[in-house]
């Protein structure tokens, strides 16, 4: 950060240098035949006038050539006369020169030692293969192919491997984040570690889709057993139409069409108003991942990005499943996320909301499929700790209320919260892993979970349903702050078979994405057996599996966005293989 010497000093030293060079050149044969002296002589003033570096400036810009007299003497040792060679050697060093030499030695020694230690450390220390904070496998050393080499991929992958697998990378990242946190001051009491970006305030929010149906008022019917009845009403009074028709800019009422033939006429008991915060500020944004500040709290969210065009396909998939399993109760649960309950409406970027899309899908389901209404399950408890603030999942309490609604629909027993052992752990939400936004690194929160007290065993199988091992349903001893959702049945990639002490003969198969994982422990008092299949990690026909295992109940649970995305497609695929 220093350009070192000032002009005056440089000019003096340049003068010494020029004299030396002239003296030196006088001993050399003339090398240039075609000098252009005229140009150089007259150039000094005009260069300056043209705004280009003049000779004077250029000389002073010479890379400290004149400064290092030691170097000047040694550059051409064979061309210098004896006098010049021997003079500095015979002259005793002054105190200043001795200090300079010592300083040079110290600088080289210390810097080289540091550099060497780090370089050797990077070579010999074991390199991590997984980043727990980012929830991903780290880069592996690339395999050589000529194609990869000529495209430049091979070499860039080597660099990437070297950088991605630095030993203690998470520690270094923490230090880096800590350093960056020193760049500025906190805002409104909230610690802003990074940069505040704009999108969402007032008229400037051009990127925010203004046709969002939020803030919305959802008029919902009272939760009742009718939720287990088949949906009949297909009339479209949901978000799209309402939002289009509404004259209001700020609040657009949306009347839900419950899959209940009495819902349209039922007296609303709950009115849901989506959260609104026009002052919410986006701190980081990448794709649908969002970090924002609302009030004094920093939130991490995965904005809803469902594709309604796929709604019919998904509904058809579930209808097909029901057709294939005529004797089983089939349930559809489109889980609502923090998008519906926490994220300010102003930040939404899609035309349809998660809630309106889930309603839209449910209206297309066969009447034989029972819809689990998570809105009504969660709404009475919305002040409770249902969702993480910086993680895309729900807390187990949110899952508990959804499971309660499901158990009610399935007419099975359901354990009270007091029948669980409650624990609390620190955790780092998944939005940090997804965004790597450093401001979230220190924004830990509390993960509250409930371990059922009744008797059960859990067997784990691979994607082909080959037995692997028996292990706890919620292995607390393996708890990890960043991969904390692995507390629920180790990993999504295993198929689980839970055998409980319940003897009602009910066999439940859960076909899911990662979201309902937290629900399963809440059902160990409700079913004799539970099979849990994450449809992303399954290589067989799930309908055949349900038949084979004698499933009495099949719960298809996932977020609305996943249902309208690849996971919904995967489920369709699993019915046809």
């Amino acid at each position, binding site marked *: *950060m220093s*350009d070192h010497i*000032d002009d005056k000093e440089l000019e003096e030293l340049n003068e010494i240098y020029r004299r030396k060079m002239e003296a030196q050149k006088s001993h050399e044969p003339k090398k240039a*035949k*075609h000098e252009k002296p005229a140009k150089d002589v007259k150039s000094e003033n005009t*260069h*300056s*006038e043209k*705004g*280009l*570096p003049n000779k004077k*400036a*250029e000389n*002073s*810009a*010479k*890379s*400290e050539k004149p400064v*290092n007299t030691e*170097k000047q003497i*040694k*550059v051409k040792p064979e061309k210098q006369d004896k006098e010049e060679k021997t003079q500095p050697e015979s002259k005793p060093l002054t105190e200043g020169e001795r*200090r*300079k*030499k*010592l*300083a*040079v030695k110290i600088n080289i020694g210390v*810097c080289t030692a*540091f*550099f*060497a230690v780090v*370089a050797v450390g*990077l*070579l010999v220390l074991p390199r991590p293969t997984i980043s727990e904070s980012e929830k991903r496998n780290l880069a592996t050393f690339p395999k050589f192919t000529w194609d990869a*080499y*000529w495209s*430049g991929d091979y070499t860039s992958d*080597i*660099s990437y491997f*070297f*950088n991605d697998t*630095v030993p203690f990378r998470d520690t270094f*990242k923490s230090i*880096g984040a800590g350093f960056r946190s020193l*760049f*500025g*001051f906190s805002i409104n009491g909230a610690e*802003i570690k*990074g*940069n*505040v*970006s*704009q*999108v969402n305030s007032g008229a*400037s*929010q*051009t990127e925010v889709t203004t046709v969002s149906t939020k803030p919305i008022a959802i008029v919902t019917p009272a939760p009742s057993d009718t939720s287990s009845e088949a949906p009949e009403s297909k009339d479209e009074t949901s978000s799209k139409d309402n939002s289009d028709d509404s004259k209001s800019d700020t609040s657009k009422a949306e009347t839900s069409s419950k899959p209940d033939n009495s819902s349209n006429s039922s007296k609303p008991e709950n009115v849901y108003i989506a959260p609104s915060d026009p002052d919410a*500020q986006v701190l980081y*944004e990448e794709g649908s991942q969002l970090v924002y500040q609302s009030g004094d709290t920093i939130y991490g969210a995965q904005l809803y990005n469902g594709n309604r065009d796929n709604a019919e396909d998904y509904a058809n998939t579930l209808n097909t499943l029901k057709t294939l399993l005529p004797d089983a109760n089939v349930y559809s649960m489109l889980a609502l996320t923090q998008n519906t309950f926490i994220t300010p409406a102003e930040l939404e970027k899609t035309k349809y909301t998660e809630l309106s899309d889930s309603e839209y899908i449910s209206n297309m389901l066969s009447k034989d499929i029972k819809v689990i209404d998570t809105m009504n399950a969660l709404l009475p408890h919305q002040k409770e700790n249902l969702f993480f603030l910086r993680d895309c999942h729900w807390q187990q309490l949110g899952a508990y209320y959804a499971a309660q609604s499901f158990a009610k629909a399935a007419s099975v027993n359901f354990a009270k919260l007091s029948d669980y052992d409650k624990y609390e752990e620190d955790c780092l939400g998944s939005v940090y892993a997804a965004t790597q936004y450093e401001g979230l690194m220190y924004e830990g929160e509390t993960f509250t979970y409930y371990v059922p007290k009744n008797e059960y065993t859990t067997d784990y199988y691979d994607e082909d349903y080959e037995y692997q091992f028996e292990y706890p349903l919620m292995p607390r001893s393996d708890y990890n702050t960043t991969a904390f959702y692995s507390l629920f049945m180790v990993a999504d990639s295993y198929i689980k078979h839970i055998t409980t002490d319940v003897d009602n003969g009910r066999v439940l198969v859960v076909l899911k994405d990662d979201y309902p994982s937290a629900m399963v422990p809440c059902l160990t008092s409700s079913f004799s057996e539970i099979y849990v299949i994450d449809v992303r990690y399954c290589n067989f026909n799930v309908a055949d599996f349900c038949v084979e295992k004698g499933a009495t109940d099949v719960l298809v649970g996932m977020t609305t966005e996943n249902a309208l995305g690849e996971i919904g497609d995967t489920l369709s695929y699993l019915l046809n293989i």
Partner: protein
Amino acid sequence: MIFADLFFLYFFMALCFIAYFICRKTVYRNWVLIVFSMIFYAWGEPVWVFLLVGSVTVNYFAGLLIDKFRDTKKATAVTACALIFDIGLLMFFKYTGFFVENFNAISPVDLPVPHIEMPIGISFFTFQIISYILDCYWGKIKVQRSWYKLLMYISMFPQLVAGPIVRYAVIEDEIDNRVITSADISDGITRICMGLGKKVILSNNLSTIVDTFFKNGDLASLSVVGTWYTVIVYAMQVYFDFSGYSDIAIGLGRIFGFHFDENFRYPFVSKNITEFWQRWHISLGTFFRDYLLYVPIFGKRRKYLNLFLVWFCTGFWHGANWNYIIWGLYFGLFILIERTIGNKNMRKMPKALAHIYNTIVVVVGFGIFYFTDLGKLGTFLGNLVGMNGNSFVDKISTQNMMANAWLVIVSIALCMPVIPALKKKLESMNLYLATSVGQTVLNVAVFALSSILLVNATNNPFIYWQF
């Protein structure tokens, strides 16, 4: 491969130093530099190594022919052919798409616009080659009769892809005769550490502010203060980015025993635009001064037309886009104005006023430099004076300033010669050793911190790589 990369710093550079210092003879060291330079260049784009080597080979023979036919028309012809070849390559790779786009715009035809991948550093090594050929022709240097030595000069990895534009004359003697002193190594280490710090600690973090408002934000709604704030930060980002790269290049060169010219001399302390360009990207300015300004293309009227040509080329050299041309001519215009006013009158301007004038012109210039989209450039210029109906100040910008206050303040301070002044002061207090030890501690701290910040860096190429 880039300098601000852990693989480069702790593997490639380490191996290169080991190999270099194991060899005792200059000839072997030259070969070490060639091998490592080829690996360096091939790391990102292996195929372009052939272009580089081919270009060097053509110019090597051109140099020999120029020498052979010296003072004859044949020498002129060879020089012209070599220049056409070199400039032709640059034009083909860098400007073909631009020319076709503009041709389509002004003509009824609609030619397909070719998307030609540009070899990294072609602007820099082409200019080095041109300087070699012209200096050969003018007899300012001896023709290099060794192919591998010319290859080493052109391909030397410290300055290969982003300058500074090292002229052959600068290192002519050092190719064969160089002695590396401990002072050279010490200075080289310091330059590398400081350059890395400029890039990783300052420039990379300043870039996040710029991205927030200019790249990702809604430019039209950015306030007057927010626009000025961002463009000032951008000016500093470019300075620390490019001067940081130059520092590393000069430092590496010093350790290898070469003494490259300085490329930056605290440009923001300038009192006028003429001075600014004597302190900013000096190697480019001196190149145009020596190889273009006095070429009598426009005959007697060269006084103004050459000035126009130089600044047109300065802008165009930076990129195949109109904003770069506007940027170059913008500075040319101010230099013309300053020249019309005269040096004496310029000096009469109060110092504070002169600095303000220079800073405003330079900073606005960087705005022109940033916006390759001319529509956005217009919005930016309107924003500066509140012509877009934008507010004077906005909450988000204010918060960003608060959130990055120390970073910006430290960056502004380091744009000034604060450290040299501090060192000088301490040394005048007879604290030379303490100052030197302080520099060592600073070197290690900056290098360590930069390394840590690079652990999670995903995208930190040097800005001037694209040129």
